[in-house]
Structures are given as structure tokens and as C-alpha cells.
């Protein structure tokens, strides 16, 4: 009796330590990854062939002005000290001034980021809504014509240059057919009507009840969002298919059939339930990929998001802006990974 009591007690207490240790380890590795990311951007910033002082003071500044700024930027200190300055700045959300428009980079990023998020969110939404069912159906009807179609859709998605497909989309749907709005987020006529609250025009115009603006914004976003949606559909449907195939050959699926369940219940209630956790990871990853894929898409569609921002900055050698944008996208990448990890733990009973 007493033996089983202590046993129970141990069972209650024991899981706590590994859990804390696990969490600390995870937090530690996240911190190291973030530090590493900042170190890489720092190094990139240092090996730049552009002289940051010259970029601020201009070609014709006197030597004394040059020296003053040189010191002010901390360039006379050892590299490691400079790195800690840089770290401290980033932690405070200070990415320095944009050399192009002399505004803080962080402000710029805060302004352009919602546009990217709006686009990527809509894109990944399209990808999930179409990609998951396509993947499931392809797996269930493996080898059928629908599986072949799903395969071709994915292959084309993996092989098509996104910027070119965007151009073709613009050519056909905007240039020839005139079904959608052109580049940009709104026609000039509709600009500056709706007050900025979230920075996402669809949301802002809906909040303000300006439905004509909403419609116009939608006609502009539908093409780039579908484009990104197609890319995430290719990825999501492929992964869904292979996850489902794995589950459908599992023995518990036979059990479900032996019970007398309908095929639909077998697929959705049993097999699909088992891939939900893996799908979360795939979706998080695909969202992260879209943030990246939006770089080229934003250029094509003149979309004022973070991708356009980084590229414009790059072409005008505005290194603070480039690195600031890179750091922000990188941090979001890491955060999405952490999030999918967390969701994994919450939803998978085996991980508890």
C-alpha cells in the first residue's frame, strides 16, 4: 500500500523537472538562434563596401566632421563592443536611421509590415482552404486522375518563377481581361479615404464601413493573394497528401473500418485527426515562406510591404533599412517556428 502511495507521489512530482528543463533548453536555443541571426546581420553590415560615415556626412564633409560621426557611430571601438551596441539597439527596437528618407527604420517597418501581413495571411488562407482538401482527396484516391491533377498542380507550382507568373497574371487578368485592379493597393481615387488603424486596408475599410474602398482594395489584392495562395497550395497539398498516405496505411484505420464506420468518417474523424498536428507545422512554415515569397510578388504588384522596402533600400545601398528588414523577417521566422512547436505540444496527446 505504502509502496504504491510513494509511486503515485513520484508520478505526480517527477514530470515537473523534465518539463522545466525542457522549457529552459528550448528558451536557451531560441535565444542562441536569435543571437546568431543578429550576429550574421551585424557581420553583413560590417563587410559592406559602403562607408556608413560617408553615407551620412556626404563626400565633401571635412575630416573633423567625418571623425566626429565616426566616433558617434562607435566605429572606433573594437568589433565585439560594436556588436553589443548593435544588440542593445535592436533590443530597444532601434534599427538606426534610414539613409534614404532620414526616418527611423523601425517606423518605416511598422508602416510597411501590415501590408505584407495582409497579403501573406490571405495567401496562406487560400492555400489552406484549397490545399488541405486537395491533398486529402489525392491521398484517398491515390493514382486516380484527381491525384494526377494534384501532382501536376504542385509540380508546376514548384517549377514556376513566382515573379513571372505574377507578371503573366497581371497581363491576362488586368491588362487583357480587366477583371482585377492593377498594381498597388488601391486606385488613386480611393486613397486616403480610410483612416489607418491596423494598416491592413481590407480590415480598415471594413471597420470604417467604406465598402467601395473595400471592394477596390479587394480587386487589387485578389491577384497577388491568389498567386501566393497558389504557391502555398502546392506545398500544403503535397505535404497533406504524404501525411495522409502514411496514416491511411496505418492499422487503426483498418480498425475504424472494421467497426463499420463510413469511409468519410474513417478519413476525417480518424486519419485526418492524426495529421492535424503535422499540418500546423506545415502551415506555419508555409506562412513563413510566404513572407519571403512576398519579396518578389510585392515588386511585381508595387505592393508597399516589407519585401518592396528591403529591395528598394538594397538598390539605394540603404544598409540600415536592409538589415532592419532582414532582422524583422528573420525574427518572425523564428517566432513562427516556436509557435508551431508550442501548438504541437498542445495538440498532440503523445507529447504530454
Amino acid at each position: 500500500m505504502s509502496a504504491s502511495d510513494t509511486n503515485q507521489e513520484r508520478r505526480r512530482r517527477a514530470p515537473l523537472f523534465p518539463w522545466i528543463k525542457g522549457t529552459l533548453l528550448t528558451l536557451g536555443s531560441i535565444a542562441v538562434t536569435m543571437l546568431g541571426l543578429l550576429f550574421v546581420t551585424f557581420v553583413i553590415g560590417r563587410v559592406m563596401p559602403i562607408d556608413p560615415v560617408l553615407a551620412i556626412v556626404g563626400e565633401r564633409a571635412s575630416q573633423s566632421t567625418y571623425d566626429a560621426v565616426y566616433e558617434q557611430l562607435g566605429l572606433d571601438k573594437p568589433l565585439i563592443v560594436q556588436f553589443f551596441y548593435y544588440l542593445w539597439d535592436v533590443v530597444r527596437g532601434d534599427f538606426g536611421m534610414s539613409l534614404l528618407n532620414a526616418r527611423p527604420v523601425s517606423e518605416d517597418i511598422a508602416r510597411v509590415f501590415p501590408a505584407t501581413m495582409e497579403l501573406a495571411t490571405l495567401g496562406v488562407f487560400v492555400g489552406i482552404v484549397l490545399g488541405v482538401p486537395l491533398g486529402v482527396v489525392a491521398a484517398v484516391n491515390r493514382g486516380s486522375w484527381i491525384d494526377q491533377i494534384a501532382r501536376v498542380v504542385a509540380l508546376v507550382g514548384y517549377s514556376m518563377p513566382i515573379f513571372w507568373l505574377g507578371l503573366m497574371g497581371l497581363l491576362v487578368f488586368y491588362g487583357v481581361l480587366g477583371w482585377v485592379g492593377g498594381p498597388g493597393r488601391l486606385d488613386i481615387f480611393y486613397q486616403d479615404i480610410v483612416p489607418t488603424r491596423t494598416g491592413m486596408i481590407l480590415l480598415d475599410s471594413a471597420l470604417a464601413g467604406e465598402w467601395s474602398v473595400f471592394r477596390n482594395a479587394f480587386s487589387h489584392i485578389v491577384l497577388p493573394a491568389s498567386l501566393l495562395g497558389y504557391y502555398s497550395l502546392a506545398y500544403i497539398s503535397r505535404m497533406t497528401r504524404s501525411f495522409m498516405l502514411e496514416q491511411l496505411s496505418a492499422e487503426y484505420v483498418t480498425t475504424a473500418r472494421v467497426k463499420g464506420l463510413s469511409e468519410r468518417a474513417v478519413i476525417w474523424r480518424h486519419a485526418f485527426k492524426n495529421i492535424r498536428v503535422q499540418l500546423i507545422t506545415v502551415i506555419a512554415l508555409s506562412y513563413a515562406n510566404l513572407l519571403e515569397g512576398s519579396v518578389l510578388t510585392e515588386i511585381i504588384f508595387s505592393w508597399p510591404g516589407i519585401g518592396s522596402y528591403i529591395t528598394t533600400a538594397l538598390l539605394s545601398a540603404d544598409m540600415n533599412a536592409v538589415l532592419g528588414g532582414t532582422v524583422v523577417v528573420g525574427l518572425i521566422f523564428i517566432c513562427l517556428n516556436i509557435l508551431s512547436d508550442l501548438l504541437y505540444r498542445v495538440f498532440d496527446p503523445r507529447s504530454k
Partner: protein
Amino acid sequence: MSDVTSQNQSWREWLTTDAPTSRRHARLANLYQGWLTLRANSMAMFGLGILLALLLVALLAPVLSPHDPFEQSLGNRLQPLGTEGHILGTDSLGRDILSRLIYGSRITLYIVALVALIAPVAGLLVGTVAGYVGGWTDTILMRITDIFLAFPRLVLALAFVAALGAGIENAVLAISLTAWPPYARIARAETLTIRSADYISAIRLQGAGALRIITKHIWPLCISSLIVRVTLDMAGIILAAAGLGFLGLGAQPPSPEWGAMISEGRRFILDHWWVATVPGLAIFTVSLAFNLLGDGLRDVLDPKDGSQ
């Protein structure tokens, strides 16, 4: 004539034998088996065909191209498809698009070949060393790998190119820098399984050093999974290179790089659509070919992971 067929017959027999007579014989027979499986996959063969054609076109570019790809002719600019002497039309400077495409295939192959040489080799080095040595070396190397994996690849490549300056070589370097971490992961995983195998212990007992074990026994076994991964990644490499070219960060004008050609044609997309469309189709075809071949190779070399 009949001599030749019987010779072929015996070759085939020799290659399909159940009882190989030597190690080399066994290896060749194995390769032949793989080739037979691959040949049965019509899509993979289609991809291989396109790639061989591309190679041929790149080799024979001066012979095949009807015009000098750099020769401008402003009076002859933006000619449509099917123009006499310019089947695919001309671009904004009156240069023959077909000739530029043909010469552009050299650039594409150049980039792909360089990245395919640099990234997997770097990954193989890092991965096998991390996996074989273990301990702190492993932790540190894999942590670095994770950091590079945490970056969005294109954005990191952009930042690198920004630091190094635009140009083909720097684009190759930037793409390689973002492409090696997955290879390191694969190589490490393979090394970990091979390392603990009994025959490695046996070799070690015979006095083989770490260097010999890694280069002679671990590397050869990592190769096949790396090849599959490289082939599947080729499409991504081509798309990334084209993307950098499109942004003006890869090959510089007047170089006929396909991505840069799209970028040039973009300005005239509504009135002269073919200028941007044709190079895009070329990029699509080549990366599709790599994807098809990669799928087929995966089925041959790594059947457990086959999506068929």
C-alpha cells in the same frame, strides 16, 4: 550485325546477374538496376531529356543561335513573335530573343553547376564532421546550421548580395550560403547511423583513422541521399538565381540571364508581352525538368521516401 546484338545480350546478362563476381561488378549491376527503374518512369526520362537538350544547346550556342545575342539594332526593336529572322521576336534594344535565350542557358547551367558544387560539399563537410566527432563540435556546428536555417533564404541572399555587390559570382555565393544547411542536416543524420554500424567499428579496430573513415566509408554512403536532394533543389536554385537576376542583383546587363531578361521585358509587358514571357517559359521548363528528374531519382535511390 548479329555479333553486335549478341554482344549487347551478354552485356545485359552481365549487368543483371544475381551473382556478381566482383565488387565493381556488383556496383555496376546495382547502377544498371537503378537505371532500369528510372527508365521506366516516363516523366523522369522526359525531365532528363530536357536537361540533356539544354546541355547540348549550351554547348552549341554559337552554332545554334541565329544572331549575336549582344548585337543591338534599334530600328528593329520589339519585333513580335514569328518575325522573319527573329522567330521569338526582339527585345527593347532590338536584340534577337532566341539567341539571347540560347546564350542564357550557359549562364543558368553555370550558376546551377557552381551552387551544386559548393553547397552540398560544404554541407557534407559540416554534417559528417559534426556527426562523426560529436560532443561540443556537433552542438556548435548544428547550432550554426540552425541559425542559417532560421533565415528566410531569399532575404538572406539579398542581404549577402547587398554586402558583396551584385554579380553572378556573388549571387552564386549568396545562394550557396543559404543552401548548405539542409545538406549538413542530411549528412549528419546519415553519419550518425553509419558511425555506430559494426563494420565501422571493425575498420576502426584495424587501425583506420577518423579521416580515412570519413572520406572512404562515410562520404560514399551519404552521396546518394545528397544527390537526390541536390536534384530536387536545382529547381529552387534556378528560381532563386532568376529572382536575383530579376531584382538586378545577379547577372548584370547586357548579360542574357533569363531572370534579367524578364526584368527588362517587364516594362513592356502590356504591349509587347512576349519579351518577358519567353524567358519565363524557359526558366519554367528547366526547373520543371529538374523536378521531374529529382522525383524519379528519389524513387530509385531512396524508395522509402517515394511519394509514388
